[in-house]
């Protein structure tokens, strides 16, 4: 029998991010229980956030050791949309970092099984870059009986590690975070001919225009539209003398597009990177979290960002 190495050569100094897919309960127990016990042996805090089924399996197999977990939480209540979930998660990570030099987490993002939760794959991808220096092992659990096959393909491209039966190994389907975000964001369709681009040169002018452009059916979203559009215009005006503003509706979705002819975004995953109160501009994050979804197109000739708002 080959010796199992639940975290391989991970040395606890930075993020290890594994996507583990299981189709039966025995496989899950085989993977997670040794992972948890190794953490106990190494005196690392071990956290579990998972669905009910996974939690009851672990409870049955860990027995009295269950009480040694630093957290044993229900994933069902964790989902607050991609931005809300990642923001809360990043805050928890900061707290943990103050308390322990390294830790490990087994997490089951049960929301991937739902249509609304699919955007999470983009956040999983971005975590690889923005959480890279956080010293923990994140073992992400995915039940193939619950999560659709195409979402499992997204899991593969957004997790650099997978499980070979005895140790974590590189995931061959893994892709660069920016590439994942590009591939999974809403498709970039042609702007309708009637949606004219208006140039704005000040944020306050943009706010007045945005407020006026919100249709009656979207009145409840007006604050979101104005605040989100404002932050994008602020960003555009940092790199260009004017920003182009266009709005239109696509079915019952209001689309706000802000464009500039600046040098392009150095990092097009910005809108998915959770805010750190200590540093960094956070306008993109706020804009994208206020909208229901967002898409970006950027290059040396300029940048355009679209925000989508349901009624």
């Amino acid at each position, binding site marked *: 029998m080959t010796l199992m190495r639940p975290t391989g050569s991970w040395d606890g100094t930075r993020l290890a991010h594994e996507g583990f897919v299981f189709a039966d309960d025995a496989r899950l127990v085989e993977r997670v229980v040794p992972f948890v016990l190794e953490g106990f042996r190494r005196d690392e805090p071990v956290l579990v956030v998972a669905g009910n089924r996974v939690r009851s399996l672990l409870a049955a197999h860990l027995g009295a050791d269950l009480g040694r977990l630093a957290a044993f939480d229900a994933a069902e209540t964790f989902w607050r949309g991609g931005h809300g979930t990642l923001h809360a998660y990043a805050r928890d990570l900061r707290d943990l970092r103050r308390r322990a030099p390294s830790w490990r987490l087994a997490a089951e993002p049960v929301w991937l099984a739902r249509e609304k939760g699919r955007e999470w794959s983009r956040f999983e991808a971005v975590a690889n870059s923005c959480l890279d220096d956080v010293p923990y092992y994140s073992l992400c659990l995915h039940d193939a009986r619950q999560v659709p096959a195409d979402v499992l393909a997204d899991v593969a491209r957004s997790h650099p590690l997978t499980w070979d039966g005895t140790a974590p190994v590189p995931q061959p389907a893994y892709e660069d975070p920016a590439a994942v975000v590009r591939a999974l964001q809403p498709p970039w369709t042609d702007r309708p001919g009637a949606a004219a681009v208006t140039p704005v040169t000040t944020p306050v002018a943009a706010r007045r225009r945005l407020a006026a452009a919100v249709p009656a059916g979207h009145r409840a979203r007006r604050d979101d539209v104005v605040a989100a559009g404002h932050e994008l215009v602020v960003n555009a005006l940092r790199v260009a003398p004017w920003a182009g503003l266009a709005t239109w509706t696509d079915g019952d979705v209001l689309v706000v597009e802000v464009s500039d002819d600046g040098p392009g975004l150095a990092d097009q995953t910005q809108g998915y990177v959770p805010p750190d109160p200590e540093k960094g501009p956070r*306008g993109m994050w706020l804009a994208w979290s206020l909208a229901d979804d967002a898409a970006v197109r950027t290059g040396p000739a300029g940048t355009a960002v679209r925000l989508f708002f349901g009624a």
Partner: protein
Amino acid sequence: MVTVPRGLPSLTGLGPGDHVCWSFSDDADLARAVVAHLEEGRRRDEQLLVVGASRQAALAAVAGLPDRDALIAGGRLDVQATGDTYAAGGGLVPAEQVERYRSAVQAALDRGRTGLRVAADVTGLLRAGPAGRRVLHAYERLADGLVATVPMTALCLYDAALGPELLGPVALLHPVQHLGDREPLAHLSGRGPRLALSGEVDLTEAAAVRTALVDVAGDVPGVLELDLSDLDFLDVAGARALALAGRDLAGRGVALKVTGARRQLRRSLELFDLAVAER
């Protein structure tokens, strides 16, 4: 009291309760503003006061006021220098200066006038370095509170050459603002029982809000409440400015307590872990 900051296309239509920040480009521009302001006060049967950098400068500013000398001789128009008015017995002491104005308003009423109208070029006070600036900001906040409660109309004049960095914070302390063609967005009000921000705070106002807020807070340790109930918009830069102001104040033992923020504001504030307290 709700005070939405407003602009002022021309210097007419002002009345008791109005506290205006007006930037002027040169002496002629200053004189135009002063004369228009005082002329309106004369028609309203108010006591008039003009304050300039020197008595000479103040007199020059009212040279175009009809019957100037008669008004002065009749005790209807007082002419003072910033030095006499604001620095009696040393530097400006905000609370004392406000009390002097309160007495002047009462004296005007006792003489049968309908109120007091002041045009004061206080540019010099803003040129007196960071310490002077702090005192001036504390004073403007108290003055705003006074003007709200007595029949007084105040035109605070500042030389546009001071530049936006110095003018931005002081303008915020006035409910009526005229800074060239810049649209006034926010008012940091000392008019109610607690300090309040109204209007909109975005990145164009953010640095000024931080400076003004820290300066008016003073040095008395304790809790400083900032009411955001009438603030309509706060962007990321504005929320960062409030967070930084809170940090500056904490260094002096003053705990900034933000209250009354509605949902849009909370979304910006929470990016900086700024909690909104219950009142």
